[in-house]
């Protein structure tokens, strides 16, 4: 078969393009099959099969105690202070007994002290999270290694299905640009700020766990919030749960929330 110059150049050109193209595809595939973390994990990193929390409200006496935990979280995560309450963004907050346990709060003649208690609420990092089940893009997902319910704010399309699905009201949507509502002096440059139109929530300080630090709320709580491995029978958190009477929010829905509340009374409960 003979070939003129024009045909030769065409064939050579196409082969080159295809060759370079397929080579780059193969290299690209090789790259993307790497772990998402580009560096080796920090040896200090905290590890667990399933992270969970015990919140002992008897140790939260004053308003200040609650505030410390909330500010510790909101400051390091650049949570905006939006002026309009409809557009509120919150990862951890204080609420009444009635709001925290609406399903059991109907009893009007129960212990007054309990009724007047306040609670710290944040994402339960459920074992069967409804938010993960409904998310159409896997922007919210349960981390296989330690059960943390994560939120990828770069993949989120803002459909807000997770907000409809979460029985605990743990999720906030950026109805307005959050950046102008973060106080300049408080901004944490090591944690990303968000843009309009995405959902966010508590992610159990995954970024702190990775360098061996406790979640910010637990650290600031003076022992009121204990963080630990729910699946390790010897962990401190498991000991607390076995010693004290604890309740969880809406356990009847089967999501297996990972926050256990100790109401108080300690040993006799």
């Amino acid at each position, binding site marked *: 078969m003979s070939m003129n110059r024009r045909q030769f150049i065409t064939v050579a050109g196409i082969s080159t393009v295809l060759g370079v193209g397929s080579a780059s595809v193969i290299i690209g595939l090789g790259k993307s099959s790497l772990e998402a973390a580009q560096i080796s994990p920090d040896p200090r990193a905290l590890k667990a099969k399933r992270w969970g929390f015990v919140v002992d409200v008897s140790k939260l006496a004053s308003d200040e105690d609650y505030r410390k935990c909330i500010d510790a979280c909101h400051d390091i995560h650049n949570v905006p202070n939006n002026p309009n309450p409809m557009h509120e963004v919150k990862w951890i907050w204080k609420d009444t007994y009635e709001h925290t346990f609406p399903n059991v709060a109907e009893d009007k003649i129960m212990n007054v002290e309990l009724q007047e208690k306040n609670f710290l609420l944040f994402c339960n990092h459920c074992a069967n999270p409804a938010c993960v089940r409904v*998310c*159409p*893009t896997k922007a919210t997902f349960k981390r296989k290694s330690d059960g943390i319910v994560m939120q990828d704010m770069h993949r989120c399309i803002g*459909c807000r299905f997770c907000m409809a699905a979460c029985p605990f009201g743990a999720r906030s949507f950026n109805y307005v640009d959050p950046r102008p509502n973060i106080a300049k002096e408080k901004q944490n440059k090591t944690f990303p700020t968000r843009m309009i*139109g995405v959902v966010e929530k508590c992610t159990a300080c995954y970024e702190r766990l990775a360098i061996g630090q406790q979640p910010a709320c637990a650290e600031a709580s003076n022992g009121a919030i204990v963080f630990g491995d729910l699946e390790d029978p010897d962990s401190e958190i498991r000991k607390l749960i076995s010693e004290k009477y604890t309740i969880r929010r809406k356990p009847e829905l089967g999501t297996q929330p990972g926050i256990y509340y100790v109401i108080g009374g300690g040993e006799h409960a």
Partner: protein
Amino acid sequence: MLEKALSGSNRYWAWIFFLLAVIGVGFIAYMKQLNEGLGITGLSRDVSWGLYIGQFTFLVGVAASAVMLVIPYYLHDFKKFGKIVILGEFLAVSAVIMCVLFIMADMGQPMRVANILLHPTPGSIVFWDVVVLNGYLLLNLIIGWTTLGADRKGVKPPDWVKPLIYLSIPWAVSIHTVTAFLYAGIPGRHFWLTAVMAARFLASAFAGGPALLIILALLVRKFSKFDPGTEAIQAIGKIVTYAMFANVFLLGLEFFTAFYSNIPGHMHPFQYLYAGIDGHDKLVPLMWTSSILAVVALAILVFPNLRRNEGILAFACVALFSSLWIDKGFGLIIGGFVPNMFEGVTEYWPTMLEALITLGVWATGFLLLTVLYKVAIAVREEDAAVEH
């Protein structure tokens, strides 16, 4: 065939430009939303879905209702629907387009919407809703266009279109079932967590959609030489009546379960919608308007003598359509969010910008519907001229 939409009377062009103007205003409002975020709507942390998702849900029903013409005509050989079935199919096409636009309007990050396909998640109902809605759009577009094209040439539709028509029947049921599953599978939203949700959706769809179709058919007859057929319209009237009774019956079941069981979480949304909670009662007048309109419509439709008068039938259909539009396009969504997950009440009311965007989407749907109907009518008018 599309060229037939390019020639029309002054009235036709005035209508087209009116719709374009409404679309333009809606588009400008949407640009503001795109720029500033969904904060320009009445939505909040507690009521995170509102008018857009309500309209989407309602319109999925309108789209599904085309099957109420397809089944009698293609499965039971009910010849009277021969001329009107195309109006149902094209209504379905426009309704699905509006659904897609309402979903886009509701997204916080609409430019990322392809993530649904880039990261397909079969465990999420949204994924299936995208699949079935787009499939249904395609089916109706192909079926409608092909059968109309064949009609124009005076030949029978090609054989390959028959299986598609049969497929479109369960497919129509699927779009509304999947849409109901968006709500009916969520733990902790008592108002939505009901097994009859999909059944109720279908019943209200098969009442509301055909009611709109009757109104459209009467308008088509008034403004063109094409008559969809008196008997066809009457037959649809019967369908509307039965479906609406089924819908009201199913709503009654919800009331019974909520109030006889006396479970607070189940009763609260109904109390909020129909009586208000602690003085929060923004939706009460609307919900009662919906109930009264439903009763009025049924009181008319149940008597064949009244139904036979087309003026009265049209009135009943407008009442019924408005009733369902309030109930499903608004109350159903808000009732799921009030009271919130903490049994607190945050009310919702759409803002002006939100309403303008909503109108813009409706106008887009009507523009498409007008163009499609114009083509269908032109073909029918030609046919009629040939026959005479």
